[in-house]
Each structure stands twice: as C-alpha cells, then as structure tokens.
C-alpha cells in the first residue's frame, strides 16, 4: 500500500511542475512496469547455478 503513496507523490510532482501532458504517459508506463514487478524486476543473478545455454 505504500506504493500508492509513491504514486500519489509522483503524480503530484508532475502536476506541481505543470507537466500535465506527461501524466497519461506515466500511467501507461506504470502499467508496463507491472510486468517487471511480476518477474521480480531486472537483470537477475543466480549464484551456484551454471547456465545451460
């Protein structure tokens, strides 16, 4: 739920900068970001695992 605070602050930042036109782009980006959250994010390390390929 703390992520909602971040989202609120993020939108408030762009509103405060009067860059309203970024907000639709941001919303779509955040949805795309959900993809990353589902897979745990970024480049992934795996110690004690040797690649098969």
């Amino acid at each position: 739920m703390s992520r909602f605070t971040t989202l609120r602050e993020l939108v408030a930042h762009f509103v405060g900068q009067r860059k309203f036109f970024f907000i639709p782009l941001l919303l779509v980006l955040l949805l795309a970001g959900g993809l990353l959250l589902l897979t745990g994010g970024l480049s992934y390390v795996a110690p004690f695992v040797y690649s098969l390929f």
Partner: protein
Amino acid sequence: MRALADFVYTLSWRIPGRRWRRLLAFAEAEAESALELRCAAAATVDPERAALYLKHAADEARHAQILHRRAALARGAPVTLPRRGHGRLYERFGERVFVAYVHRGERRGRRQFEAHVRFFEERDPPLAAALTSILTDERRHERYTGELLEGPFADGAARARRRARLADLGHRWRRAGAALTAPLFALLMLVLYLLAAPLALGARAREADGWRKED
C-alpha cells in the same frame, strides 16, 4: 538418463561462438558464489564454519579466474568479467537453508562438470584439465556441505532442503521469466516511445547553458 543429461548440458558447446560466452557465464557464477560465501563467513556465529566458507570462497574465486582466462582463450581476445552482485542468500534464508542451497548447487554443478569433462576430454584436453581441477573442488564442496546438513544442521535439514529446492526453482523461474519479459517489455517501450513522439516537441530540452541562479 546420463546420456540425455550429458547431451543437454553440453549442447551449447557444439554451437560456434557460444563457447567463450558460456565459459564467461560460468566464471560469473563462480564469482557470485564467492561473494555469497564471504558474506556467509562474516555472518555465521561459528568460527569453524566461517573458515569452511572462506576456503570455499577462495576456491570459487580461483575457479572464476580459471574460467575467465579460458573464456578469453576461447574468444581469442580479452573479455571483461561482468560484475552483477549476488542474491544475498544467507541474508534471505538464514544459514541452514543457505547450506542446503549451496549443497544442492554444488551437487548439480558436479554433475554438469562431469559431463563437460567427458565432452572435452578428446576435443580440448587443456580445457578438460582445467575443468577437472574445478570438479575436484566441487566434489569437496558437495561433501562438506552434505556433512554440515547431517551434523550441526541435521535438525531441520529435511525442511531446509525443501526450502532450498523451492528457492532454487524460484530463482530459475525468475531468471527465465526475466529473459522472456525482456523482449516483451522492449517492444512495449518502443511502441510507447513512438506514441509519445508528439510530447517530444514540447520536451525538446532547452539545454541548460551556464549558471542557473536561484532567486
């Protein structure tokens, strides 16, 4: 079964241009393992186990150097060993599950390296010899971690092994997931970037020139 496993483990050696990349990936895995073990040595309360983890870490660091050199030889040019951090396994799982995880990894690594040694024995004897030296250590690592699970960590070892198996599967799932998501995300970002093109007109950066003074 062994023949099938051998085939899977050694498949990519047969693909031109893959050999040095895979050796480099192995070097990376060894280097990450060394980092995990150094952290474990610092964190464990038992000085004897700290010493065991340090010896293991020194072995992994040496393996990383060997494999890094082998990757450069296979490529015919220097290669940079990437540094990507580590999974902080001890921190996340605690010592018992960490040891179970390492034991599982070493056992799997030992089997894979046995297959690699068999593959390269005739095809590339110097590489086979290098991999054999690593294999000797892998067997020792598998043995001592197994002894820890039967000794000081015997109580709860079965549960620890199960958790390690789940964690291992989880890591490999996430690794595969990240690899699958990457192209999808890249495509999505490209589409968004193109759709956001009109914003580019407004966003043409006035390059900040000189001092910006505060009021």
